[in-house]
């Protein structure tokens, strides 16, 4: 089945529009950030759509006020701004307050990683996984395609809770052409392998597949997991999958070794008492003002196919040889 890849945000907004026409308790708040589909929401539900302006702190405060009064709120802005500009508002009036006041809040951050390619480091986002997963009560969703994004929506409306969705600003290839992943699992094993398993999130899942092709040429068979819920995946399920491997490689479009996907997996491995060697593929922890295509930028910071392969090939080779010995 051939599915045309679509922008994650438009698929998600379309679902919100549908649900808003059925459920009068859904409210949409934007920090002056739009999309053609959002125009439809704005026009059709003027009493439940508000643009707070370029004011993310107020975006979160208004969201919190609406949410404790029973509205299911979708708040929408560029990823680094909706997470970092207003982090204490998120901590105090969402994460903390939700301990005592039930609420349903979904923060939609568009522009994961380098997806705002030419806008530079203010608009790019390499820290959001780290800081958002630090907050209890928040789930962090990091889909790799529009199919996953669409599937994540239903849970956002059906149950109370706090969620952060980091969406890519560019259209990504479809990873699930036949059927969507089981969202409650939080991850999906795409390809089974031997000894080494790649665990990737968001855009980097596509990179992991490209690297897999190269690694396959060397005759090595490697597994690939797409992890799209970075906080509430089924731990037993992932443990069961990883038990048959000797090593993992983590892939994220965020800083390496700074508390992101790599740290989360190391914590999981330790907690699950898994005996796995690890390699982390993430952005070199420094800021850069260089320009180029997303792929060129990725090569410069160590997460492009070629620059990552340089680290992965010897790692995989060592693991395979260790096994043989």
């Amino acid at each position, binding site marked *: 089945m051939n599915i045309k890849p679509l922008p994650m945000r438009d698929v998600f907004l379309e679902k919100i529009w549908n649900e808003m026409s059925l459920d009068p308790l859904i409210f949409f708040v934007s920090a002056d950030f739009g999309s053609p589909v959002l125009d439809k929401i704005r026009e059709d539900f003027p009493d439940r759509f508000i643009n707070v302006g370029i004011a993310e702190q107020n975006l979160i405060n208004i969201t919190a*006020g*609406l949410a404790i009064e029973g509205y299911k709120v979708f708040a929408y802005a560029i990823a680094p701004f909706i997470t970092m500009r207003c982090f204490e508002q998120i901590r105090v009036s969402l994460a903390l307050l939700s301990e005592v006041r039930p609420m349903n809040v979904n923060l939609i951050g568009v522009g994961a990683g380098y997806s705002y390619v030419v806008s530079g480091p203010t608009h790019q986002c390499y820290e959001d996984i780290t800081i958002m997963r630090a907050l209890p009560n928040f789930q962090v969703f990091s889909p790799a395609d529009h199919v996953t994004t669409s599937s994540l929506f239903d849970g956002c409306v059906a149950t109370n809770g706090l969620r952060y969705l980091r969406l890519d600003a560019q259209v990504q290839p479809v990873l699930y052409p036949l059927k969507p992943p089981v969202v409650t699992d939080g991850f999906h094993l795409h390809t089974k392998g031997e000894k080494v398993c790649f665990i990737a999130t968001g855009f980097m899942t596509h990179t992991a597949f490209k690297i897999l092709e190269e690694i396959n040429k060397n005759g090595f068979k490697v597994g690939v997991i797409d992890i799209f819920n970075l906080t509430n995946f089924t731990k037993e399920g992932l443990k069961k999958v990883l038990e048959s491997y000797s090593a993992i490689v983590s892939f994220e479009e965020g800083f390496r070794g700074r508390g992101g996907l790599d740290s989360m997996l190391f914590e999981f491995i330790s907690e699950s008492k898994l005996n796995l060697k690890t390699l982390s593929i993430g952005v070199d922890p420094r800021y850069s003002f260089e320009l180029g295509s997303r792929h060129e930028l990725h090569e410069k910071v160590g997460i492009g196919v070629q620059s990552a392969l340089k680290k992965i090939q010897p790692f995989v080779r060592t693991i395979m040889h260790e096994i043989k010995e």
Partner: protein
Amino acid sequence: MNDKAQWVWERTLQLHRKSPEMRVASSLSPIEILVVLYYGGFLKQDPSNPFWDDRDRCIISKGHGSLCMYPILADLGFFDSLELDKGLQEGSFLGGIPDPIIPGYETINGSLGHGLGVATGIALALKTKKNDSDVFVVTGDGELHEGANWEAIMFASHHKLDNLNLIVDNNSISMLDHTDNIISHSGLVDRLTSFGWSCVEVDGHDIVAVQKEILKQKNTANKKPKAIIAKTLKGHGVPGLENASLSHIMNPKPELIDELLENLIGNLLEKK
């Protein structure tokens, strides 16, 4: 209500004497404001059902300075007065800074400058739900240095949230100094007015005046959010503490605290 305010003042000092870690100076400035709100018929609430949908919402944004809320809420029946004796102890819900585990509290306010924004969201929600309850917010003046307040102030007037009522306990002292020596809030009435609010200034220790202004605003239909800048004194009524620039963090040795508290009790008895 004057007697009630005096009683709250005494109880607040007693609570502080028992648990000196609880801030007292900033809890003495808003007493009359809170007494007017809670005993003056302005807040429609049901202590047996703190989250009753038709209640008026009251957000105490100045978390540090609301020790005086504990006797008020207990007196109104939000919780048992016996709880007051357990404050700050293990198992008690009455902390040094109040949290919404205390019946009668709506939001988290230990970190300053959050109350007004969340209250603005609540006011918007009530308008959209066509619930005609009011939202009151009590802030300090020091926390108005937080920029998020001004995002909310712009938002509230633009969206004509006339169900939103801000009362600033303007004791003019932040943690380290008078706000005039930090960043002055002089002209606050003009500032809020120019932001599209209906705003007046009042003597925050004059119960009749506070009551009169709230009533006047309540009866004015101009589609504007309302603010009252209540001029107050930090550490009100306590010699040595009142209006002292460091009253918020004055931390004398324990024996000096005991001596000070004994003097306060003496003053109280004298007053009576």
